[in-house]
């Protein structure tokens, strides 16, 4: 079983990202489960969402404590919370950042780090505003490329189905991030 934890801030679409991830992988015939951190959410406050992936039906029904990979929608969270809590060694940390992976030298010792300027890609594709770019689809493009867990075409299809508006711009953001991610 592979377990993924997504960190974002309320309004960035972490929960939707966890669902799109689940739908993409489900399309390839695997079993999936995704859920938000059980609780109340506020705009701007840290939000966590989870996705489980397996080849057989998922019976486990509790939170994820030892994720295989983490996805960070907002780099300011790295200072605010312990984003690697319970993360397995050599797990991917995929960060929305315009910096090189080597910039995150405290993480790089234990984990594999990938970066992508998801905010820049979102703005280029007119997703959200400068103050609040919608980065959830772009970061999944980076996740797809880095982890190789599923095909880009499955993700693009899932984005078209699951995103309520601007489907093609979101698909473009996915593709841009897929090609621009650094790791």
């Amino acid at each position, binding site marked *: 079983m592979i377990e993924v934890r997504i960190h974002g801030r309320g309004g960035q679409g972490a929960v939707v990202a966890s669902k799109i991830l689940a739908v993409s992988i*489900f399309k390839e015939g695997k079993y*999936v489960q995704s859920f938000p951190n059980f609780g109340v959410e506020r705009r701007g406050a840290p939000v966590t969402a989870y996705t489980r992936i397996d080849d057989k039906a998922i*019976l486990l029904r509790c939170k994820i404590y030892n994720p295989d990979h983490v996805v960070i929608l907002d780099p300011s969270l790295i200072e605010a919370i312990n984003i690697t809590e319970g993360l397995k060694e050599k797990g991917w940390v995929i960060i929305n950042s315009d910096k090189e992976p080597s910039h995150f030298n405290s993480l790089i010792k234990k984990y594999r780090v990938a970066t992508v300027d998801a905010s820049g890609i979102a703005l280029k594709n007119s997703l959200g505003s400068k103050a609040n770019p919608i980065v959830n689809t772009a970061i999944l493009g980076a996740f797809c490329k880095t982890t190789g867990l599923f095909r880009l075409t499955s993700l693009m299809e899932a984005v078209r189905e699951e995103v309520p508006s601007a489907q093609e711009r979101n698909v473009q953001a996915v593709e841009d991030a897929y090609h621009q991610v650094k790791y």
Partner: protein
Amino acid sequence: MKKILMGNHAVSYGALLSRVEVIAAYPITPQTQVVEELSEMCAQGKLKARYINVESEHSAMAACIAAEQAGARTFTATSAHGLTLMHELLHWAAGGRLPIVMANINRSMAPGWSIWTDQNDSLSQRDTGWLQIYCESNQEVLDSIIQAYKIAEQILLPVMVILDAFVLSHTFEPVDIPKQELVDQFLPELDYPYKLDVKNPCSFGSLLPPEYYLELRYKVQKAMEEAHDVIIKVDKEFQQVFGRSYGGLVEEYRTEDAELVLVASSTVASTSRMVVDQLRDEGVKVGMIKMRFFRPFPTKEVTNILKQAKKVAVIDRNISYGQGGIFCEEIRSVLYNIDRQEKPPVFGYIAGLGGRDITPTTIREILSHTLKEDKPKENIIWIGVKH
């Protein structure tokens, strides 16, 4: 067609496919998405139902009672404080023999204020005359709504379909949405025998003197007893049409030759399956029964399975203050009259109240404790209490 659905929307699809005709509901976390989706389905014309916005859950149930009495298939959904506000009318729905179906998302009662799961809201409605189904997956949620109408409309008692807050309500997973034609074939239109009819005037809910009241209550109990076989039959028919079955009232999991039997319900039963598999791999003879129905209580099944066990461990995500875990107490009660030499010690564990996570480690801890001890030293064994 398989879709990734959250538990709340699995409820909505169950109601849609059952072609409910009247929905009266009031939103409450973590249930709101159930009725939000249903109101959307009504607005889009996908569901031809009258959607009634009401000012409270008490009114929601009152509207369902009136609509059902008029012969319409009705639905509502609620949670915790909403359910307990309905309490008076839950008695009315069952006593009036109205086959209403309601979803309840298990949420803990305040204070302290909580939106997380435990079973005290629904279990405290135990004596209202409603059947109760506890579900462990989103598929079972959708399927149980459809089954619930079929059961309710045969025995003329209301049914509550119950799912855990967040652990199911807000969790997305693959759900097979059956074809409407198949559901129509399985669940015929409601033909309520005692409906309001100007051509056949009757009086409903009128004063009932002592010389009749007892007989009406006797009939409610008889309907509950009759429900036992109806539930099993409906589950079998469901399997023939849709290829899925839930064991009727109780599902056994690896209980063959099990010396220790774990009793669990809701999503705890799902996680328990994993733990049972792990322990079996380690050579421990352990099995599990999932309590799908709490009312009617599966007395026959529970007795037959548990009398073969050497020890029984019950996990309760609920408590009856001054007594103990509610499933545990009922299990001890039905085992009381079996032969002394067959009677296994029943260990009662309370865990996960207020949404405290129940992980495989929690369940292993419980089973290790039961394996180690000969007899329970206390009526309640608390798991994870911080002092």
